[in-house]
């Protein structure tokens, strides 16, 4: 815990130092608090602090950092692991990015690192946006590369590498409608299974460890449309189709409706529906014998549906000196369909969760 406190202290000091000599374009400081709790004793509490500050005309820097406190219903110790075990861990992370923006071109270059008790992550990312047709069309390309590592010496391989490319085109169709088409290509390789997943067999047979292919490539296609239904009401619709070479396919639909209650209050409601197939290697939970080449055990590699419903609130405080606070809050309920893998691991027929999020942007 000392490490995480120290990280936050360093970030706060860094923000203060940068604020003291910077000036320029739209700048902001953001704090967010998020919480997740589910019916399997899973709990994640996240504190995050971020800042964008211009350091010269057209140039800015972004700094982000945060700490997750994670309670999970599985042990991090192989010698006493088990579905009913409860573990506590922390994850701290920070990113630094350089930003260039001349209103026609926007470029972000950055790096990210994270540390957990048993895992470390390193990433580099680049994001370029080009405005065309008098800012009616924008093209975006984002590339990121991951180099992660498990800190468990007994694993056959302890690395995870990955690359992701995201492409999108956004177009204004009318004064009240815009849409975005997106494509993502994601590649991962290395030790992709979880060292904490297993299936017990009758004594004296050994545990069956989770085992997954050493690489995975997936693609996602997405469409998002935003339409003003009236001056006070807007509709935000999105659809995503995903598929990968493990033969998982999924469909995701998200609908959000926002309505201005006053000039500075906006209330929103949302509904998200999700359906996925299983991998080509997934069997019924009781059908594994230990002789299979691949043994997916996490329920997310099986077929299931889920839905999420919630409310969003946006509140803006305008000050006479043009400085603004934007407060955004949300509360969502998430639930999966009944699933035998969930029942085996979490002793519940399904997973349900409440997700809370609150953020404050200070724009100065």
């Amino acid at each position: 815990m000392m490490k995480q406190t120290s990280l936050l202290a360093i970030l706060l000091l860094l923000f203060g130092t940068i604020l003291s000599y910077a000036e320029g374009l739209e700048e902001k400081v953001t704090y967010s608090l998020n919480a997740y709790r589910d019916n399997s004793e899973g709990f994640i509490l996240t504190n995050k602090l971020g800042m964008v500050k211009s350091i010269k005309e057209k140039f800015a820097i972004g700094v982000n950092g945060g700490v997750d406190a994670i309670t999970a219903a599985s042990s991090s110790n192989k010698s006493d692991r088990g579905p009913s075990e409860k573990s506590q861990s922390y994850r701290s992370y920070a990113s630094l990015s350089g930003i260039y923006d001349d209103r026609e071109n926007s470029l972000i270059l950055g790096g990210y690192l994270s540390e957990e008790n048993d895992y470390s992550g390193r990433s580099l990312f680049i994001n370029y946006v080009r405005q065309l047709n008098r800012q009616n069309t924008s093209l975006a390309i984002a590339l990121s590369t991951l180099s992660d590592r498990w800190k468990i010496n007994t694993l056959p391989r302890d690395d995870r590498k990955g690359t992701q490319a995201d492409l999108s085109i956004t177009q204004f169709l009318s004064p009240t409608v815009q849409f975005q088409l997106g494509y993502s290509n994601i590649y991962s390789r290395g030790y992709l299974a979880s060292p904490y997943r297993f299936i017990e067999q009758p004594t004296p047979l050994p545990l069956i460890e989770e085992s997954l292919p050493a690489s995975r490539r997936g693609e996602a296609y997405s469409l998002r449309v935003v339409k003003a239904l009236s001056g006070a009401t807007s509709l935000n619709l999105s659809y995503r189709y995903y598929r990968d070479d493990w033969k998982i396919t999924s469909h995701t639909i998200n609908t959000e409706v926002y309505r201005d209650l006053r000039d500075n209050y906006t209330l929103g409601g949302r509904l998200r529906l999700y359906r996925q197939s299983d991998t080509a290697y997934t069997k019924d939970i009781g059908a594994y014998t230990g002789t299979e080449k691949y043994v997916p055990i996490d329920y997310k590699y099986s077929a299931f549906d889920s839905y999420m419903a919630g409310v969003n609130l946006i509140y803006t405080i305008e000050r006479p000196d043009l400085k603004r606070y934007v407060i955004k809050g949300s509360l969502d309920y998430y639930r999966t369909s009944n699933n035998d893998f969930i029942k085996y691991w979490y002793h519940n027929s399904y997973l349900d969760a409440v997700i809370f999020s609150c953020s404050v942007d200070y724009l100065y």
Partner: protein
Amino acid sequence: MMNRLVAIVLLLLLTPACSSRLERVKPYEKEAFSKDKMLLNPMPLKVEYEEHILSIREASQGGGSSFQGGCGCK
């Protein structure tokens, strides 16, 4: 899949340059889009957190708007 990626990049680069019909909204007509509720992502920090949680709970990835770093819970 790499061929498809290259084809999509070329399509994205060439399509907008081919048509002036894509210049459909004048700057002074964009007032509606100045409100948060008209953004493609009105709640970016919430979505970033939610995408992280859902990447643990669901097998699908991508199609989102935010960068997600490495995590041992995935």
